[in-house]
């Protein structure tokens, strides 16, 4: 593999992603200032907005880690073309770990089980204290991030070494991915229970973790498709980002839209059928006081519309059109996380504040700039992957 080809597979210096990354950083820092000002006025609201939007953004590297390991096990050109994008995605875990600190420092203000006054009058919460207590919560979060950072580090490192002389065997990546997927399924489930479900500590749902993970995988796939589409017209990359591969990614996007709908409906149907007083309040709150319209928008815009659009073969084969649908799905992921989490803070009526938008843009802007800074460090395609034979032709 000549260095010349390797050079050309880096993100071109005038590419739109570079500028977007710089602007995102500026926007993120401005939004962060706004958020801090918001916190001075209404500290509780700012913390809540921060937690909700954090739960959306942290889903991108978590979902990306799942897809990255999955494509190492299954193989296929669809995975090879987005592998470097996924590796840049999971390289943002250290940043997300740092951004978790404000949450870890404000547990009593966010979680009822961390508020000693509440627990003192609540026998159920006293019963749950061995699990739901501050030090164990923070320890668990540290373990999740530790495992995710280590997994992503070795996945990215060994994958890059495959392009160098004397590469490690693909088998090593496959074995790491096998164990890693199990670890991710467990840690992802527990993280969603800890960070989101425990906001309403009396309520529980056994499908909650996988519902969260499914949504995170969907978000990461949609994000990767949008990034891949932005790369598809760059010279040299266009021979790899072909309509066939976008077609495959589009089919996967359709499948994960359906998987999300399947999990979401499963949880609803089971709770609706059981009709038990300890389970139904969660849905009751989300189906009244304006929140129900957010729920309806999820059925229509998170499922029905993308489902119908993604049935179209020509749409899946056009990078621009597919990216537009993917960005729509990504937007609806924000709405879904908000609908799942925000009503837990106790408001009977639908409410969204400028502080929420500031938090979304603050975390998102900084996160996206960090993502781009990871993306530009490597060639954008795995040069020696047998699933991308056209790269060998380009090199010779």
């Amino acid at each position: 593999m000549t260095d010349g080809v390797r050079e050309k597979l880096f993100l071109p210096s005038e590419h739109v992603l570079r500028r977007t990354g710089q602007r995102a950083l500026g926007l993120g820092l401005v939004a962060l200032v706004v958020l801090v000002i918001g916190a001075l006025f209404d500290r509780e609201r700012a913390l809540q907005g921060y937690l909700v939007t954090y739960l959306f953004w942290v889903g991108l590297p978590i979902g990306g880690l799942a897809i990255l390991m999955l494509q190492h096990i299954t193989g296929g050109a669809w995975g090879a073309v987005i592998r470097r994008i996924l590796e840049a995605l999971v390289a943002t875990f250290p940043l997300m770990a740092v951004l978790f600190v404000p949450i870890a420092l404000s547990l009593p203000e966010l979680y009822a089980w961390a508020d000693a006054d509440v627990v003192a009058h609540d026998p159920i919460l006293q019963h749950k204290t061995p699990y739901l207590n501050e030090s164990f919560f923070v320890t668990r979060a540290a373990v999740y991030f530790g495992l995710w950072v280590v997994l992503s580090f070795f996945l990215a490192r060994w994958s890059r070494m495959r392009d160098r002389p004397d590469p490690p065997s693909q088998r090593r990546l496959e074995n790491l991915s096998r164990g890693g997927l199990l670890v991710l399924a467990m840690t992802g489930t527990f993280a969603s229970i800890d960070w989101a479900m425990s906001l309403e500590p009396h309520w529980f749902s056994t499908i909650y973790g996988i519902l969260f993970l499914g949504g995170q995988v969907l978000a990461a796939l949609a994000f990767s498709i949008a990034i891949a589409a932005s790369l598809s017209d760059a010279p040299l990359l266009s021979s790899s980002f072909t309509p066939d591969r976008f077609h495959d990614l589009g089919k996967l996007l359709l499948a994960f839209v359906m998987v999300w709908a399947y999990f979401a409906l499963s949880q609803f149907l089971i709770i609706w059928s059981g009709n038990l007083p300890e389970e139904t309040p969660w849905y009751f709150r989300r189906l009244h006081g304006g929140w129900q319209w957010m729920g309806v928008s999820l059925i229509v815009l998170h499922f029905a519309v993308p489902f119908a659009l993604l049935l179209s073969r020509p749409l899946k084969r056009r990078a621009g059109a597919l990216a537009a649908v993917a960005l729509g799905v990504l937007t609806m992921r924000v709405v879904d996380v908000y609908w799942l989490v925000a009503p837990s803070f106790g408001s009977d009526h639908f409410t969204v504040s400028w502080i929420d938008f500031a938090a979304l843009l603050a975390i998102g802007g900084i996160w996206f700039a960090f993502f781009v800074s990871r993306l530009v460090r490597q060639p954008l395609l795995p040069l020696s992957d047998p699933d991308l034979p056209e790269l060998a032709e380009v090199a010779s």
Partner: protein
Amino acid sequence: MRNLAAHGLMAEFASAADLVAAAREVREAGYRHFDAYTPFPIEELDEAMGLHHTRLPFLVLIGGILGGLGGFALQYWTSVVNYPINVGGRPLFSWPAFIPVTFECTILAAGLTAVLGMLALNGLPQPYHPVFNISRFALASRDRFFLCVEARDPRYDPVETRHFLEGLDARRVSDVES
């Protein structure tokens, strides 16, 4: 003069790449009534033969929609009209409970439409086909690739078409009796 008893000319190729290249040439030469036979699916072949349109996806969509409506209607009729039972005080028309069966009926009808529609559009089952009159054609399910230009094509000429096919790297060209 055309040989009216002939089904066409069968060209035999040694590799998938030769066949795809030949199919492209045959199409560019203006032939429209020809078919290719291979031991395994070849993705590029559709495009080389100019086979862009298939009505199957549309049929599957219709089948799926009808299956979904049918499944929903069946449940509505059984639980609301024909045999209403009070289950745990829920309304008779408890649509959330209908969704899984509606979904399954959608998939079932779409899947059956896909299989049966594929067979129908391909004209299957077909007890007799002239291409089997060539003994070597059995190799089409092993390691040879065949392309048959049919006599009903307006451009077909027993002599010229044979020359043309022989010029395309065909291992051999045989007459197919109808």
